[in-house]
């Protein structure tokens, strides 16, 4: 690409020189004609055709080289070239239809030519024009000087037209400069966009509507083990064998499309085993006519591997933790039950504390396992028809000992005739238990916790309200993120895992419900969630 533009720059420079030499020769010839030639002499009839030939050359020049602005690629500034071509054609026809004797017309055409050249390269034109004027005024011989005078006289007589032509000149120049700048900007923007797309970490593959490859960036080439240049313009279809290595990867990627905007995971095994996430997008222009399609290919091999590693680790760690935990729990419970003889008053609270701590650890391990399963998408939901009143009563029963030990009252108000909800009872119990446990844990002794259920359209809303310590405003947003714990409660109660609300949020959302929380530090917290009624 770069080599080409270098070469093009050289050619254009060369052409400019040729052009000005030609132009100079023609002007000289014209000056000579005006001064010496008898207009009625038919043997000079070829001169206009020569001039027309020059104009044709100019058209050709415009077509091949574009303008002298070599920074812009030919394609993007075709408008400038187009304008040049039109001017040149006008000159061409002026010459062609001018009779040999009609020097006035020829002069006018030349004048236009000068303007055109001026428009193209003002500085160069001025130099050349001044050169001619000097040549005309102080010519090396009298004959040429006379010709120069006649030329200037003629040009002078053309001043009225010149005024309009001057306007045209200014306009042309402005237009040209504007277009050139525009083109340069366009080129820069395009270059920027190309650089961005080319160096993007995600693979980008673009086809036209007939699945001809239009573009493939470096990332796509690397991931798929292909060379975009080998495939450019090739119609990629299934069931066709191309003699190109790893072409199968491209077919695999294309084969994933079922619906626009789908994200599909595909596995390829050459040149390396990789897991790819492929997103398909149709490309449409402003009036929604499709002009192609784009595939974004992301290598998620490592990402997936790491995720699995993490998940496996948690899973294995949790399982490995459970066995010694069972031992601990059993040991404490045998002691507490008096299975090894009665405990003294000093021993009993220690054993009870050990038992309680072990239970907490068991719950933490369970939460960790739940989270890792949830994140792997194998939490194993089983939806059924659930009686919320029963679920609430059961959860209150579970938490009663804890609430009583902290001197906190749990009040519930559930209407008698609540229709059943569509839920996974076991998972939803985790949610209610968590909310209720939080309310009890973070209330001051003597506090009250209310739990109520009410129907709200197609949903049941369950609300848990306490007058406990509340959650600082600034931290409410973070509340449902993994391992988050409020500043004010970390010191107060050290055994929270920061997983409860994260799990709860996931469970409620999986049910199609939402969680709503209002809390004020020192006043209390109200948390509610919705679950749909069974249909």
């Amino acid at each position, binding site marked *: 690409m770069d080599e080409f533009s270098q070469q093009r720059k050289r050619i254009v420079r060369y052409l400019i020189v040729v052009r000005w030499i030609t132009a100079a020769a023609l002007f000289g010839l014209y000056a000579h004609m005006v001064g010496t030639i008898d207009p009625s002499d038919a043997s000079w009839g070829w001169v206009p055709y020569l001039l027309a030939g020059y104009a044709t050359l100019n058209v050709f020049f415009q077509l091949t080289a574009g303008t002298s602005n070599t920074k812009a690629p030919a394609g993007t500034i075709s408008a400038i070239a187009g304008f040049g071509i039109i001017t040149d054609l006008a000159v061409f026809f002026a010459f062609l239809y001018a009779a040999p004797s009609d020097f006035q017309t020829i002069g006018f055409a030349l004048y236009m030519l000068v303007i055109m050249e001026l428009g193209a390269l003002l500085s160069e034109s001025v130099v050349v024009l001044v050169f001619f004027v000097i040549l005309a005024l102080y010519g090396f011989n009298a004959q040429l000087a006379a010709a120069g005078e006649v030329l200037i006289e003629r040009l002078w007589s053309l001043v009225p037209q010149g005024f309009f032509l001057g306007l045209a000149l200014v306009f042309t120049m402005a237009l040209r400069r504007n277009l050139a700048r525009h083109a340069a900007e366009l080129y820069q923007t395009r270059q920027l966009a190309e650089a961005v797309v080319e160096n993007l970490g995600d693979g980008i593959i673009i086809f036209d509507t007939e699945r001809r490859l239009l573009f493939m960036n470096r990332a796509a080439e690397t991931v798929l083990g292909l060379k975009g240049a080998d495939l450019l313009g090739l119609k990629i279809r299934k069931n066709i064998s191309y003699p190109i290595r790893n072409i199968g990867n491209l077919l695999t990627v294309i084969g994933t499309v079922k619906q626009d905007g789908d994200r599909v995971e595909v596995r390829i095994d050459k040149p390396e085993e990789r897991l790819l996430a492929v997103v398909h997008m149709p490309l449409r222009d402003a009036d929604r006519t499709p002009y192609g399609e784009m595939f974004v290919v992301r290598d998620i091999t490592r990402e997936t591997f790491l995720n699995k590693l993490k998940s496996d680790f948690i899973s294995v760690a949790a*399982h490995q933790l*459970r*066995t010694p*935990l*069972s*031992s601990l*729990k*059993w*040991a404490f*419970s*045998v002691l507490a*039950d008096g*299975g090894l003889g009665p405990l003294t008053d000093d021993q009993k609270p220690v054993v009870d504390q050990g038992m309680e701590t072990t239970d907490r650890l*068991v719950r933490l*391990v*369970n939460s960790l*396992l739940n989270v890792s*399963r949830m994140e792997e998408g194998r939490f*194993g939901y*089983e939806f059924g028809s659930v009686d919320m009143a029963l679920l609430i009563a059961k959860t209150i029963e579970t938490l009663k000992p804890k609430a009583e030990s902290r001197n906190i009252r749990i009040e519930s108000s559930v209407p008698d005739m609540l229709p059943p909800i569509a839920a996974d009872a076991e998972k939803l119990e985790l949610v209610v238990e968590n909310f209720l446990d939080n309310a009890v844990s973070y209330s001051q002794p003597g506090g009250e916790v209310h739990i109520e259920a009410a129907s709200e359209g197609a949903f049941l809303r369950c609300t848990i309200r306490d007058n406990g310590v509340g959650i600082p405003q600034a931290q409410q947003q973070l509340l449902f993120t993994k391992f988050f714990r409020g500043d004010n409660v970390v010191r107060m109660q050290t055994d929270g895992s920061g997983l409860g609300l994260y799990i709860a949020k996931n469970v409620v959302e999986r049910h199609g419900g939402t969680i709503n929380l209002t809390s004020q530090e020192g006043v209390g917290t109200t948390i509610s969630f919705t679950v749909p009624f069974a249909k």
Partner: protein
Amino acid sequence: MQEPPVAAPQTEPPKAILLVEDDKFLRELLTKRLRDEHYIVFPVIDGEEAFKILDKERIDLILLDIILPGINGFEILKRIKEDPTIALIPVMMLTNLGQKSDMERGEELGAQEYMVKAQYTPKEIVERIKRLFAYSARRRR
């Protein structure tokens, strides 16, 4: 056999329990706990030993761990249920695999109960065992 079920443990010969558990501490603890309740307990470490006991002894209940050296608990359960001479012995899974899929597998293979060790105390396990025996005694009547 006409007595109320509560009285059953006292009048009937003591129940024999096969305990398959590879963790020494848990095995010994539970063995002691069960013997305190006057059950006959055969503690074993793996499937191989379990089948030796099942060949020789009359067993009323099997407590079965899943993760064991050699053949795993599910495999042992499957073999028990395939052998008509022992297929009717109730099996209680006592394990740390708490996933729903594991529980379902145990149930499918014919386990009577499924308990996650870390979530129950020996006392609660003993209570379950008592209840199970009481239930089967009622059914036999």
